[in-house]
């Protein structure tokens, strides 16, 4: 189908975006690459009266170090991350993840900020950013606030973003040189949304051990026991990992039909760290 009638604007600067959102009385949507919103417009699941395009605002397309974190402009595309065009503060994890997102034609348009704002639970960045303990910076006319991605996402396709607010940056803490990460995911075809995805990070110097499970319909879950076990194992998963994973899957209430898939994917991510 075709989108319902709408008006489109592309302000030159963030201030223009915030003005447009403030004046819109809630019927405007921010669009960047449009790789999630585009299909929703065509299906008429989303029928905003106005689209405010932020994809060509220079300040949102650049990156900068801010202390120990990399501030990534919300409109940096997956393809640019895949191609190594932004500083690597995650020892290759973000490049690896970007390369596995959908297809190149989608990665050329889709942005990291848009992916987090859309908050599809199966989206790769959501689980990755929670595992990395990243934050989003939200700008509105009254001011700026920053939220951990884990707190920003409140449910499937649901975030704490309010009307007249826009994600300007994603802040990714730098992993230290001795950190290790592992990743695995299962999708029914290459480029499809993952049925199950797991990311594990161990950064001993910073005292970080975190294992996150991404699923199709629920927001990514921190695997508490598995993370503690990973810390106890000093980042080299031991024989105790499997029992910890099963304990986490039980407390997450994973259905029997999904149990083996999630267990295998998490174990593969953990084993991926050891190599």
């Amino acid at each position: 189908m075709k989108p319902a009638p709408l008006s489109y604007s592309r302000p030159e600067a963030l201030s223009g975006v915030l003005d447009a959102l403030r004046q819109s009385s809630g019927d405007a949507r921010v669009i960047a690459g449009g790789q999630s919103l585009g299909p929703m417009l065509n299906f008429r699941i989303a029928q905003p009266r106005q689209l405010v395009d932020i994809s060509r605002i220079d300040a949102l397309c650049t990156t900068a170090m801010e202390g120990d974190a990399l501030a990534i402009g919300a409109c940096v595309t997956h393809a640019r991350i895949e191609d190594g065009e932004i500083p690597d503060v995650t020892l290759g994890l973000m490049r690896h993840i970007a390369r596995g997102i959908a297809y190149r034609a989608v990665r050329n348009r889709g942005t990291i900020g848009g992916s987090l704002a859309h908050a599809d639970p199966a989206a790769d960045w959501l689980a990755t950013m929670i595992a990395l303990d990243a934050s989003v910076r939200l700008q509105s006319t009254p001011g700026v606030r920053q939220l951990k991605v884990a707190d920003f996402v409140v449910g499937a396709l649901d975030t704490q973003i309010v009307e007249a607010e826009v994600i300007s940056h994603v802040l990714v803490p730098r992993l230290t040189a001795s950190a290790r990460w592992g990743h695995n995911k299962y999708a029914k075809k290459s480029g499809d949304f993952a049925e199950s995805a797991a990311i594990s990070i161990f950064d001993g110097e910073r005292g970080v051990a975190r294992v996150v499970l991404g699923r199709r319909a629920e927001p990514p879950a921190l695997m508490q026991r598995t993370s503690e076990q990973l810390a106890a194992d000093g980042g080299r998963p031991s024989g105790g990992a499997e029992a910890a994973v099963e304990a986490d899957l039980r407390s997450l209430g994973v259905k029997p039909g999904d149990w083996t898939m999630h267990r295998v994917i998490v174990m593969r991510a953990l084993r991926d760290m050891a190599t």
Partner: protein
Amino acid sequence: MRTVNIRVNGKLVSRPVEDRLSLADFVRDHCLLTGTHVGCEHGVCGACTLLMDGKPVRSCITLAAAADECDVRTVEGYRDDPLMQAIHAAFNLRHALQCGFCTPGMLATAYDMLSRIPDLDRDRIRIELGGNLCRCTGYLSIIQAIEDVHAQRVAKAATPPSKG
């Protein structure tokens, strides 16, 4: 309504369009370049893939307004392009199209992967083609055609230029 200025296959097109018009409908209905096919219209099938500023994008979920001041290349826009000529020849030889509906998107995707990825192999071609559906299921021939072109390019790069 708004006026967009989009360079299509090297020619600047200035047209008033509705804000909600997709780039796919812009090239088909306003530029009368119907080689770009609209299949699923929600970014899944890849038939509408074309190059925008040299990069493949889904034109069914990209607004024409968002392509304002961009450079667009459709399947009609490759005349005299040696890489696309080689891809055409390989598709022909390998019978890499049956009904031809997915072909414009397949060609754009093939063109992109061949120019971007120096170490293409069969597995990588399969992954890169994951976003283009062929309902005739003629994937093997398409993969072989792309492999052929890649092999030709590798061989050409390895051959020292003749002195003749």
